[in-house]
């Protein structure tokens, strides 16, 4: 009798937590939207939505790569530095045309990702440590290449940054396309399945003969390339290359978006929809606080609280 009674409670609690983890982020977005619609003047304007969406695009793109890394039971702290590197490379090679510059920037991201992945997969360095080394070195290289802020004056870049298609900014379209692509990769490709299996149970994946090393390297290369793309887009939007500050704290925002979106830090599960919602949630939170004249300090503290709560909720679930 007592046993049954005892059993009942934790199961319900676990289910509640699970619901919270799975759908909490969507509920959060909905609540923030409603609050803003009710309280914030001019919130429901196209212009406002456009601004919000354009601002969230780079964070989201970085978060997509981060979701893959976290899904493999890792993390990538170097994404912010990769953005800086990509903006430096972009402005250096813009003379050869925007496409060449874009490809060079993405290659730069791929190389950093390859270095991360090799350290992790072949040498066995913990992901935090490996990506930390490249976080330090990456920004250094970016600053060596381009020591100070430089304006980017290129018609191609400026149309990328501020142009639109049927009223939807290119930035948003690109972010959406990448989200779909990554979501498709996770759900439908061999690589995606193998990645999830590795993140969920490395020993089982190894015994099942999966190419664990190759998959891990590809994960970090993708994360690097996505961060580089985010760097290019951010540069296009700002019309300037600023390797000193571009992408600082980006790793934190990306991790927050992923974790708040219901992807557990323990790996084995990737929620791309949740990650998108997580990025939007943080953007909305910031916007709400700013629009109500609350200072940025509040945003930072709020973000810190949200991230700890999200990790805490995930922990409860992992323990069950």
């Amino acid at each position, binding site marked *: 009798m007592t046993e049954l009674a005892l059993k009942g409670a934790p199961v319900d609690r676990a289910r509640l937590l699970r619901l919270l983890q799975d759908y909490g982020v969507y509920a959060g977005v909905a609540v923030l939207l409603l609050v803003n619609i009710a309280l914030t003047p001019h919130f429901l304007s196209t212009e406002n939505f456009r601004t919000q969406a354009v601002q969230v695009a780079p964070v989201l793109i970085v978060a997509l790569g981060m979701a893959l890394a976290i899904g493999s039971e890792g*993390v990538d702290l170097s994404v912010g530095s990769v953005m800086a590197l990509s903006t430096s490379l972009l402005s250096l090679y813009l003379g050869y045309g925007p496409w060449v510059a874009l490809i060079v920037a993405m290659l730069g991201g791929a190389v950093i990702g390859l*270095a991360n992945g090799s*350290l992790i997969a072949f*040498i*066995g*360095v*913990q992901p*935090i*440590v*490996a990506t*930390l*080394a*490249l*976080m*330090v*070195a*990456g*920004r*250094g*290289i*970016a*600053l*060596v290449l381009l*020591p100070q802020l430089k304006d980017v004056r290129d018609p191609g870049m400026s149309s990328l940054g501020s142009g639109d298609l049927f009223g939807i900014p290119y930035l948003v379209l690109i972010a959406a396309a990448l989200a779909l692509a990554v979501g498709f990769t996770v759900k439908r490709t061999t690589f995606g399945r193998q990645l999830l299996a590795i993140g969920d149970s490395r020993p089982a994946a190894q015994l099942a003969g999966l190419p664990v090393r190759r998959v891990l390297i590809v994960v970090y290369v993708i994360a690097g390339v996505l961060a580089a793309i985010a760097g290019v887009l951010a540069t296009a939007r700002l019309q300037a290359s600023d390797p000193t500050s571009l992408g*600082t*704290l980006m790793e*934190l925002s990306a*991790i927050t978006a992923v*974790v708040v979106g219901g992807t557990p*830090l323990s790996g084995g599960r990737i929620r791309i929809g949740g990650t998108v919602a997580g990025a939007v949630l943080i953007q909305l939170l910031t916007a709400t606080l700013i629009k109500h004249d609350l*200072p*940025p*300090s*509040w*945003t*930072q*503290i709020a*973000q*810190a*609280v949200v*991230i*700890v709560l999200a*990790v*805490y909720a995930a*922990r409860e679930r992992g323990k069950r």
Partner: protein
Amino acid sequence: MTHTHTERPARATGGGASPGKDIDEAPLGASRAERLSALAQQHGALVTLLLVAIGASIGFDTFLTGDNLENMAVSSAFLAIVALGMTFVIITGGIDLSVGSLFALGGVLGAWGSQYGTLVALLLPLAVCGLIGLVNGLLIAKARLAPFIVTLAAMLAARGILLAITDEGSNTYLVDEKSFFASLGQEKLLGIGVPVWITVALFVVGAVMLRRSRFGQYVYAVGGNEDAAALMGAPVARTKIAVYTLSGLCAGLAGALNAAWLVSGVTILGTGMELEAISAVVIGGTLLTGGFGFISGSLVGVLLLKVIQNVINQIGSLDSAYQQVVSGAFLAVVVIAQTWLGRRRRMM
């Protein structure tokens, strides 16, 4: 009817691979390599530091001057204090990413508090930063959250608090240049800046604590094998909480002293400092996986980073960004070496 009981020696000693022989030879052979690798780990940073310093003094007349050395020593002092706390954290197998923000927060609180006297100027940053460190420790040890994410959140929160008390960073509190607090940063004793003396004293205390106190033994044990430490009766949770609190205290104190040195609480300081501190600790030979490390190494690591920075500045034509490239590369090399050595150890 068939052949049952095909008896064979249970532990075959014949054949080329005599297990006994293998075992006898392995530890001896390994111990030589062990010794070399241990030497490299302990003194690698020191040797590199000496080589770079010798090279620099030959290359630049300005390097080995009293002013330059004094300058380097004082600017190393603040990072060194942060690295001191970080060393304890890393030896327990954790990491503290909040120290950069706490350093800045400590500076602002110290500068603000200095109007109420030196005691407040020192105690306020210690109390606030220590409290944040304590919260970090509680979340990590009791709620069992990942250290990097907890301290990352703390980094954000501390920066937020800093902005909140400085009117979003627009307000810089100044320290009265004639106050005793300012003299803690500015004065010299026997020709050497007071912050340097304080740092040296803290390192001596830290080293004694780590090597000679029971708490220090627990720090090593928790990082070396947490489960075993718990089974041996070590207070695992308390040790973890203590090291994060200590790290917060160190960062806060370093920030306050830095404010005394600069005679103002500069709000934009400390970004990236956590990376510098971690780099210094790891370059100094402490294992990021925990369980092994030493205080003196961290000091050498800090000095190495600062000397490299100084050299890069001396070259002049080179941008200071090279410093980051070099320390990132150092970090990568050290980590690769550590992992390789660690793997060989596991194999023996």
